[in-house]
């Protein structure tokens, strides 16, 4: 196992290197000028040129690239061209809200979706199954911002149970964090509940038809044990894959939900950086996102072996 993990970690190096080169070149090929954003509408060409010089944007591409790579190797993600602040601190400040909302979303989603999927499969082609599948279709179909606005209207404006917007860190005040995070998490969870419930149902349906399930039932094993110990464990691999991918997606930033609930996460940071052509921030965010996918996929792969003993690395 340790050898497998080491091999996978080493394999990330060429992946990240390719991502770095690709992102760097792609950004430089994209139209846009950070100096023009910095200077504003009335800047003269001479003023823009001087700012570009200062920012190093007039250096040859290979010099810009190696300067950036050199910084990266020293653990320095660079400095924002627009705000002149450290990219590490910008990401460090913004990733907390994103991670916390993502964790809450995944917790809610798994807690609700897995039982829903199991029950839908267990009661296949009954009204329960129909209800779960209807919810899934709805969860997929309704845009997240619509769900967000509906939740705000009901729970924040009409009932006044929760604030409309904003974020407070759980370390500062867990209660305040919870009331502010619950609506964005529920909004995001709608899609993931739908996705995980469908995947759980499909996977369970396949497993429930297996001989060993019939054998377990014939031996008089209780139905909940059959479902949750024998069947669900064997159906876990695709469900885990979906949960892992979903978590990575959430960590990469969910800009619409962040905007609707005014959460200062990395989704908004990325979009703002792209609109301003803030190269160091965009580069760092894409590298970070690639890294998150690599790590999450590795963790998901490792977790397979805990749920399915047949899988060994």
């Amino acid at each position, binding site marked *: 196992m340790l050898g497998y993990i080491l091999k996978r970690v080493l394999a990330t190096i060429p992946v990240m290197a390719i991502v770095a080169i690709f992102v760097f070149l792609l950004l430089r090929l994209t139209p846009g000028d950070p100096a023009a954003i910095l200077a504003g509408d009335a800047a*003269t060409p001479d003023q823009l040129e001087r700012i570009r010089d200062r920012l190093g944007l007039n250096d040859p591409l290979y010099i810009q690239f190696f300067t950036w790579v050199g910084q990266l190797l020293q653990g320095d993600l660079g400095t924002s061209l627009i705000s002149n602040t450290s990219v*590490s601190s910008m990401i460090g400040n913004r990733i*907390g809200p994103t991670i916390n909302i993502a964790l809450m979303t995944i917790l809610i989603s798994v807690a609700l979706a897995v039982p829903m999927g199991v029950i839908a499969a267990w009661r296949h082609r009954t009204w329960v199954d129909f209800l779960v599948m209807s919810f899934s279709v709805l969860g997929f179909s309704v845009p997240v911002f619509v769900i967000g606005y509906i939740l705000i209207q009901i729970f*924040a404006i009409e009932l*006044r149970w929760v604030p409309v917007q904003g974020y407070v860190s759980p370390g500062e005040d867990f209660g305040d964090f919870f009331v502010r995070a619950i609506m964005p998490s529920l909004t995001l969870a709608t899609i993931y509940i739908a996705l995980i419930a469908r995947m759980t149902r499909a996977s369970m349906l396949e497993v429930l038809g297996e001989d060993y399930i019939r054998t377990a039932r014939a031996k008089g094993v209780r139905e909940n044990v059959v479902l949750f110990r024998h069947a669900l464990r064997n159906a876990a691999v695709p469900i885990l894959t979906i949960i892992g991918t979903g978590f990575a997606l959430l960590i990469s930033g969910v800009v619409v939900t962040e905007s609707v*609930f005014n959460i*200062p996460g990395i989704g908004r940071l990325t979009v*703002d950086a792209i*609109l301003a052509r803030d190269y160091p921030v965009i580069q760092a965010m894409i590298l970070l996102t690639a890294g998150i996918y690599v790590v999450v996929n590795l963790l998901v792969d490792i977790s397979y072996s805990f749920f399915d003993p047949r899988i060994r690395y």
Partner: protein
Amino acid sequence: MKTFSSNYHWLAAGLVAGSTAFTPAIAQEDEVTITAVMHSGLRVLDPVITTAHITRNHGYMIYDVLTAVDENFTPQPQMADWEISDDGLVYTFTLRDGLLFHDGAPVTGEDVVASLTRWGDRDSGGQLIFDVTESLEAPDEKTIVWTLTEPFAPLMDVISKQSAVPPFIMPARVAATPPSETITEYVGSGPFTFNEDEYEPGVSVTYEKFDDYVPRDGEVSWMAGPKEVKVDRVVWTTMPDNLTAINALVAGEIDYIEQLSIDLLPILEAAPNVVVEMRDPLGYVTIGRPNHLHPPFDNKLVRQAAMDALSQENMLATMQGNPDYYNVCGAIFGCATPLGDETGSEPVTGGADIEAAKAKLEEAGYDGTPIVLMAPTDVVSLMNQPVVAAQALREAGFEVDMQSMDWQSVVQRRAQQNTIEDGGWNMFFTNWMVPEVSDPLINVMVNGRGDDAWFGWPDDPEIEEMRAAFVKATTPEEQKAIAVDIQAHVMDNVNYIMMGEYLIPQARSTALEGMIPSPVPVFWNMEKTSE
């Protein structure tokens, strides 16, 4: 030498613990805090390097200015009073008593000289003044003497302007930063201090009352007069979604929204705890800029044909929808400004005249060369104009190649003087605050210096002569007469196409009182009556 761990300190903290840095500042119980949603996130803290309005607004919070215009566009003393020599060549400023920077140091003439020098390198009006500057000196701590080589009558108007780059006064050591480099120390002498610890670029910025600020005497009028801070803190927060901001205002979570979407006004109008109002009496202008370098807009007749084809009413109605929030106005310096005049503007204010446009195109021998019209799709206030213009121009017989792109691409491409085949362009639209176009020195679009002019590059010696005469004009009447000449010239030569004025409403909680009507939102003199 930096280490890996030190560089990733913030990142690691965020990953492991869940950041607390983004937690909205928890003010003490008895502190009065105003929470305002501004039109944009603050990302650049140097109000001289950028013309971004949000940075200018930030400048007014923490810095002070020597002089400032009142609601009649008349310069008034702020940090300093002044005297002008009889020959108009020597301006002597005297700083008032009690001026302190936030670090406790007194504001001196040396600070003023350094600040004006840095500003003069950046600001177009400032550059003109420094072109005729013999010396700018501080003979003592409270006096600044500005000596010119020739009279520059609008000097006080230029240094008192409120937008886009007012000459904010910084400590000399900060003002020594090259104008192409952003400052890294944020010490002003304004009514608020900047809380650097709670600043998060693009998300939130906190200002605190500067207890040692001494307001000047007089009446409050726009940016002039006493700046009395009556709250403890002001927090600017960014909400990219206008509906979220509106919901937050209705729920009492915030106190003020600087810019409202017209479509969403009915929600606020039904809320008893919210006041919707127009605090900026001048508003904005929207304009179309043809590229004078390349065919077909290198031909005056073709530019005139384009102007004939466009209709302000159609453009503004599409942009704003509600006629309460736009004005058909042909004055290039703004309809409500001292220099505003609508001479020659009938082609755009009187509605589209497609037949006249066709006739002019024929007379010009327009050969069907497609017009590359740049259309930004990511800026709400700029996305409609190209669409309306394309339709009108096509009706008049133009071939229009409307190219959709993001605003950043427009910004980069409009700086290209290349031919159309090599990535050039023919026309784009943009918006300005009225104070940014209100006289011939501030308004960059009437600059006719060819390659040195603003994007579009008209080579227009005639208008340059008029601008030079404006600098020498000594009375308001003379200035107005020249401004009218420039207005008529721009309408005839079509340096740019004035597409009218529009207004953006603001909203505040009923708990906020005493907010000053002004084109720049300011937070002094206002009170919050209940928490």
